Structure formats: structure tokens, C-alpha cells
């Protein structure tokens, strides 16, 4: 596996020069790896992981998960629907699921009304969409691997130990 990719997956927040130090590469080599991963469309980009309950990060803080049932198309299956839905700016993630519904759509909006109108006007009006079931997120406890209460207690590890 690409060594830089391995570090990215591990989820540390290393700068490119820290990655270079860890891997024993030059900064330029790490950048080359990153470019190659982008070219291969494996590494799509950087995004911060934010605690959206904090005021400073609260813009567009209303989030919802929507279960969507659609009628699959002959020839295209679910793909055309999924790709169409995924293109809306409000949609953060979109997955095809097994089970009692077909698509799971994560949506973010500036207010409850904005998300609601996206669902009623854009999403459910797409031809072939049979039903939607919208769940608004009330509180987040863990975001992409980060605990929101600050994680583990402040370390009490001794500075020197046998």
C-alpha cells in the first residue's frame, strides 16, 4: 500500500513534512504520493472534522439523514437516481443500501426549513422516488472517529517510569 495513504487512513493530523519525517521521505516525495493518489481518484481532498454544536462552527448546522425508496430503472438500476441526488450541494453523502430502503442520504442545511424544503421540493419530486423518511440529527457524540466530549481524559501518564 502507498505509505502516505496508510498514514492518511490511520487518521493522524500530520502535516506533509511530518509525514515525510515519519516515513523517511522528502517533503517533495510525500507531495508526489499525494498527487498520485489524487490522480488515481483515491484521495479526493481534505476536509476538517468540526464539532458543529460549537457556535463558531455552527453555520449550516442542521443535519438530517434521509431514507429514500426508489423504483430501479431497467438498464440503470439505482445509479442514475443516486448520481442525480448526490449532485445537490445540500447532500454530503449518498449511499446505496441493502434492507428496507434503497438510498441513504446525508443532508446539511442552514436551517430546518431549508432542509425540509430540499426534501419536499427537490428530493421527493424526482420521478421514480417512491418515498422519503427524514430523520433530523439532534446531537452528535462521535464524528468520523473523533469523540466530541474531548475523548479520553487528560493523560495522567507519568513523565518518567521504569
Amino acid at each position: 500500500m502507498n505509505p502516505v495513504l496508510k498514514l492518511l487512513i490511520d487518521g493522524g493530523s500530520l502535516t506533509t513534512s511530518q509525514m515525510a519525517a515519519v516515513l523517511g521521505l522528502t517533503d517533495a516525495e510525500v507531495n508526489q504520493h499525494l498527487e498520485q493518489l489524487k490522480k488515481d481518484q483515491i484521495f479526493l481532498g481534505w476536509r476538517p472534522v468540526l464539532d458543529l454544536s460549537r457556535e463558531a462552527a455552527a453555520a449550516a448546522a442542521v443535519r438530517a439523514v434521509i431514507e429514500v425508496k426508489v423504483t430501479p430503472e431497467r438498464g440503470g438500476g439505482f445509479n442514475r437516481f443516486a448520481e442525480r441526488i448526490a449532485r445537490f450541494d445540500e447532500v454530503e453523502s449518498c449511499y446505496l443500501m441493502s434492507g428496507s430502503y434503497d438510498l441513504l442520504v446525508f443532508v446539511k442545511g442552514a436551517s430546518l426549513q431549508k432542509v425540509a424544503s430540499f426534501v419536499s421540493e427537490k428530493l421527493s419530486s424526482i420521478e421514480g422516488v417512491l418515498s422519503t423518511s427524514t430523520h433530523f440529527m439532534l446531537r452528535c457524540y462521535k464524528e468520523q472517529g473523533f469523540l466530541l466530549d474531548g475523548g479520553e481524559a487528560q493523560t495522567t501518564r507519568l513523565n518518567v517510569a521504569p
Partner: protein
Amino acid sequence: MNTDPKRWVAGHVSTLPKSGIRDFFELVAKMKGQDVISLGVGEPDFVTPWHVREAAIYALERGKTYYTSNLGLLELRREISRYVEEHFGVTYRPDDQVIVTVGVSEALDLCFRAFCNPGDKVMYHQPCYVSYHPSISLVHGVGIAVPTYAKDNFALTAEALRAAWQPGAKILMLNLPCNPTGGTCSREQLEKIAEFCREKDLLVLSDEIYSELTFEGTHTSIASFPGLAERTIFLHGFSKAFAMTGWRIGYACGPAVLIDAMMKVHQYAMMCASIIAQEGALEALKHGWDQVLRMREQYHRRRDLIVRRCNEIGLRCHLPRGSFYAFPDVTPTGLSEKEFAVGLLEQEKVAVVPGTAFGDNGRGHVRACFATAYDQIIEACDRVERFVQREGKR
């Protein structure tokens, strides 16, 4: 009349030197509040994996608050037996060949108290963990230090053992991979040591606490050689590989008669290990292996980073095959290990432990623990580099 309370302290305790780590600990403690990066620890930076903590919480919720059998929970001993067979290739009966202890430290203490008569000779390789020699002294045994050298990557050799051997030597204490050097023995080297133990009829105490953190090749237990299980107490625990230092939980496996002797001491001194820690250990053995591998992979990369940087800086550092310690040679700076450690702490706020805290054979070296986040290791190495360059100009 003598009123000094010291008059009540036993003679062999009052003459027992304090751990060299203790002095350094005090020095570092004085720098509280300053931006000290510590490479002086002897434990993982990972907190115990959540599934283990959760299992212990669940055990408490179910009211598991009682003593256990002196030997430990039978279910845990069964899991230990399975784990040791799978990973070390030695079979022990859970019923009478396994004892659960309060960390390997207690297991080791039990060994010395159960097997060492006053005056018995115990061989151990040095540099070594700080407690070995004092533990021998506490039972009025006689320690024989066998040196290991940087040129051998701090592996113990049968030649060094033979050179240090004295008539009447009864016990050989091993710790491979080794704290503080990270040194360990190849299968071939270990085979020669096994042969030596048979020849000299030695009882082997093998502390293999760092065995899962072996980065090059695979770990071999001395107990797995023909005829060695019969003369070996295999000591292991959960502190390092499972990141459970504060739980204080370990175990010993060996011939039933010897485990029974250890149990006699354990039942009077300790009764049993904490049931909560035993429940956590059980969960760790059942479901913890993936996490062990994940942590080992991180340690491996950190080791490569710190060893490479030490060598770049000009501090010769062998590649530790196991453990999470680098043990670089600081003599190129012209400083002693103590001067180096104190200077580095005062000038650059990086804590490492002088090698002589682990015995005289640690002279000229310092122990740097790489169970620390990448960015901390990178920054610490940059500071060491500044320090070394400054010292070099003097």
C-alpha cells in the same frame, strides 16, 4: 537511646539503593508546567482499548466484586493457556500450571521468594529492568550480571553467560525483548542459551512481556525448546501489548510443582489479583488481538523514525528488534549518560532516562521510549539535534 525511626528498617532494605529512575523522576517533576516532551516513560501512550474497559465496567455492573480463586479465574486461565499455546507453542494446563498475578512484577517477586534460598545465585543480563537486582537482594540472593553489548544489538549470548557463570548458579533471569535496550535473541542464539541451561541445570525465569512487540522476525520463547518447559517459568502480562499497565495484571506458567510453590506465597501475600482486572484481561485475550496488531504497527513506524533520526544526529543507535525503547549511544557527544540526560532536560526540555538506571552496563547510553505520538517524536528529535550540535561545538 537511638530514636531515629530508621532503626526499625530492615538492614537489607536500608542498604537497598533507590531506583536510578526515581532521582530522574524528581528532576523532571520539578519542571512541571514547562513544555517537556517525555521519552522517559515505560508504558504505551495508547489508552486501554474501549472494549476491554467496557467489559470491566459490565463486570462491575453485574456485581463481580469478590475474591477469585488464588490461581485466578478458571476461565481466564483457560484463555491464557490457549493464548500461550497459540503464540508461544508451549502447552500449560489451566488447572495447575497457570497463576494469575498482579502484573509480571508480582509474578517475578513470587519466583524469587519461592525458588531462591539465601545465598542462591541468580544470573541476569544487564542492562535490564530496574527491579531485577533489588528483587534478588530482597530475598538475600546473589545477583550475577551478564553484560550485553551494543555490537550484538544487546542480544544475550551463550558465550557471555558462560564467561559470567559461577559454580552454584541456580537461576537464569531473561527479559527478551529487553527493557531498556530492545535487544532480543535469534532462535539460534536462544537455542545455545537453552543448551547452556540444560548443561548447568538452571531454572529459567523468562519475562516475555514485550514479545508481541517484536518487529523483526518472530518471537521465540525459550520454554518452547525441548526439555526447557520443565525448567522454565514463563512470565507474561497485559501491560504492554494490550496497553493495560495501570490494571496490574499478569501471569506465570510453569511446571505444576513450581506454580504451586508460587501460589503458596501469593495466597498469603496477595490472595488473588483484582477480579475487575481479571475480567478485563479475559476480554483482551478473547477479542483484543486486532488492536494489538494495530498498536504494534504504529510502534514499528515510530521505532524506524526515532532510530533513523538518532543515527542522523550522530547518536549511534542499534535497531531494537522489539519493545518500545531506543537505546542510543551518547558518547559521541563527549558527555556521560547522566550529563546528557540532565543537559537535554534542562536545555531542551526532553526527558530520557540515563542508561545506568538499568545497571552499569547501560553506561554511555540513554533510554528513549517511542510510545509517543509522531509529532512529539519529531519535535523531540529536533530538540536532541540542537542539543547535540551545541554540545559538539564546545
